[in-house]
């Protein structure tokens, strides 16, 4: 696929997100952000600063109260639920802190579910799922249920599910939050390797050391984004 080089994978323009209530919570206040293809970006900031809100808006799971989100040049603000869902199914991959695996399905079927809403045939889904699982180092646990896997292995399954449709952008909200340090490092290495292979990745983390390893860091504070210089 060839794209105009001036088109970012993702662009936020003046994004506000206010949760209604009394008083209303201004979770994001005027965020401008641009993510280029091939980047790997860390999102850091204190608890409650608005990191998850930012990521949900990037992933079209939530809509800005004000401002625009463009994904590969397309303004998402006017898209219907159907179109947004289609966009998620094709262009976005998610990794959650709590894995969100379906317990009754094998690792293979969990990963294949990443293609379910693309209309891909069952056979092809499984073939692609196997390739994705091999990529995350679980080629030997295709038929294991999530309950039979360790935390790190579960998160690898979730990552395989996020990459199986070959999305333009992978969004990970504290993917190591439920894992011990060593296991978490393994997950980070995997994400880095995926990035090295061409995936664009945004990852929220509380871990300053982890963030420091990444080429670009975005700090969120009280709903505002502050770009950080790359520490070398």
């Amino acid at each position, binding site marked *: 696929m060839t794209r105009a080089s001036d088109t970012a994978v993702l662009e936020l323009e003046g994004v506000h997100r206010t949760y209604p209530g009394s008083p209303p919570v201004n979770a994001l206040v005027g965020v401008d952000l641009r993510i280029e293809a091939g980047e790997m970006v860390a999102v850091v900031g204190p608890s409650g600063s608005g990191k*998850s*809100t930012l990521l*949900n808006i990037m*992933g079209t*799971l*939530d809509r800005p109260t004000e401002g625009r989100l463009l994904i*590969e040049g*397309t303004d998402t603000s006017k898209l219907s*639920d*159907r*179109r947004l*869902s*289609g*966009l*998620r*199914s*094709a*262009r*976005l991959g*998610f990794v*959650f802190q*709590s*894995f*969100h*695996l*379906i*317990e*009754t*399905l094998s690792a293979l079927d969990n990963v294949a*579910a*990443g293609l*379910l*809403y*693309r*209309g891909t*045939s*069952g056979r092809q889904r499984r073939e692609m799922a196997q390739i994705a699982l091999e990529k995350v180092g679980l080629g030997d646990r295709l038929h294991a249920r*999530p309950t039979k896997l360790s935390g790190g292995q579960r998160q690898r399954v979730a990552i395989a*599910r996020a990459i199986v449709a070959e999305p333009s952008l992978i969004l990970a909200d504290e993917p190591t939050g439920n894992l011990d340090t060593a296991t978490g490092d393994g997950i980070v290495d995997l994400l880095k390797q995926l990035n090295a292979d061409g995936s664009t990745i945004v990852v929220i983390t509380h871990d300053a050391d982890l963030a420091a390893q990444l080429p670009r860091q975005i700090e969120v504070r009280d709903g505002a984004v502050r770009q950080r210089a790359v520490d070398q």
Partner: protein
Amino acid sequence: MMDRSKLRARDVVSTSVVGLRSRRGRTALTALGIAIGIASMVAVVGISSSSKAALIAQLDSLGTNLLRVEASSTGISIEPLPIEAEPMIRRVENVDAAAAVISTEFEVRRNDRDTNVVGINAMAASPELFETLRVDTTAGRPLDDGLRALPVVVLGDVAAIRLGITDLEGGPVIDVGGQDFVVVGILDELPLNPDISRKVLIGDQAAIELLGVEPNPTAIYVRVDPDLINETRPLLAPTAHPGRPAKVDVSRPSDLLEARAEVDQNLQNLLLALGGVALLVGGVGIANVMVISVLERRGEIGLRRALGATRGHIRSQFVLEAALLSGLGGVLGILLGSGITIGYARRQGWVVDLPPLALASGLGAALVIGMLAGFYPAAKAARLDPALAVSGGSN
């Protein structure tokens, strides 16, 4: 941008099946609620239809072409039919057989006991009666021309039981009007003519000569051509009593049996309504379980939305889950209800009649109830905010 979410039809189904399979115990119990409702409705319809089929089979074997001609009992004193009525009727076209009977006031008793058997009277009959009614004997033989004038009796089946005579061992004798009559036969059951079951039948000549009974018949049983009943019936009254046909009643004993089948309809409706209530309760159970399921599966719903499921996909997944749940209950209920029907019908000695329409509508009702029950929870699931859903649930 042309990205579209697309879920294949078979994946819609398998997604819903996965949802149910992951909660087997709950699925089974919820389906059971529907199964009970459907089973009771299928059993009600099946049993009553089997009973009706059995009745129709019985009517067919007994024949609906038996008519009963009798003097109307509207007046104070019943004026019996003319003596010539029987031979006249026998001469009517399409009449296959006719036999006169004369009711008497003689109560009978066993001659070895002192007391009368209350309600069991002697009745005089022409020997053609047995052929006309198509009744056999369970012991001995019916009256015939040779026995017509002799002091012998044939007992109706109920009369025999009341008299305590179950066989002809030792040559039982009964007392009619102070005279001994030898029992020569006991009749089989007479489903169409329960009145004759309770009579002790004497030959007409014996009754007239030995007991002084008036020779005018009180009733005449007539067997007519089954295809020409309606044409023949109106001829009988004027033939029996040419002067005063209005004084003659013609009835069809099988109509009474048929009427009994219709009376059951009210009870059937009541039972059906009860089954319907059970079904509704089952539906509410499904709605309940689905609401709980949606709450528990917020994480899964959020995940599916993140994977690209539209609101419509989520809605159809949950509606279909509810429909599958109740469809499962429906199939279970049909099996159960059919089993009950078959078991009951066998015990009653009926042919089993399970109307396919009833089975199909049972399954249809279950599916409709399930879908209705699924709509609200499914709408709730579809409306869930995906951002909240992915953050809320675990797993």
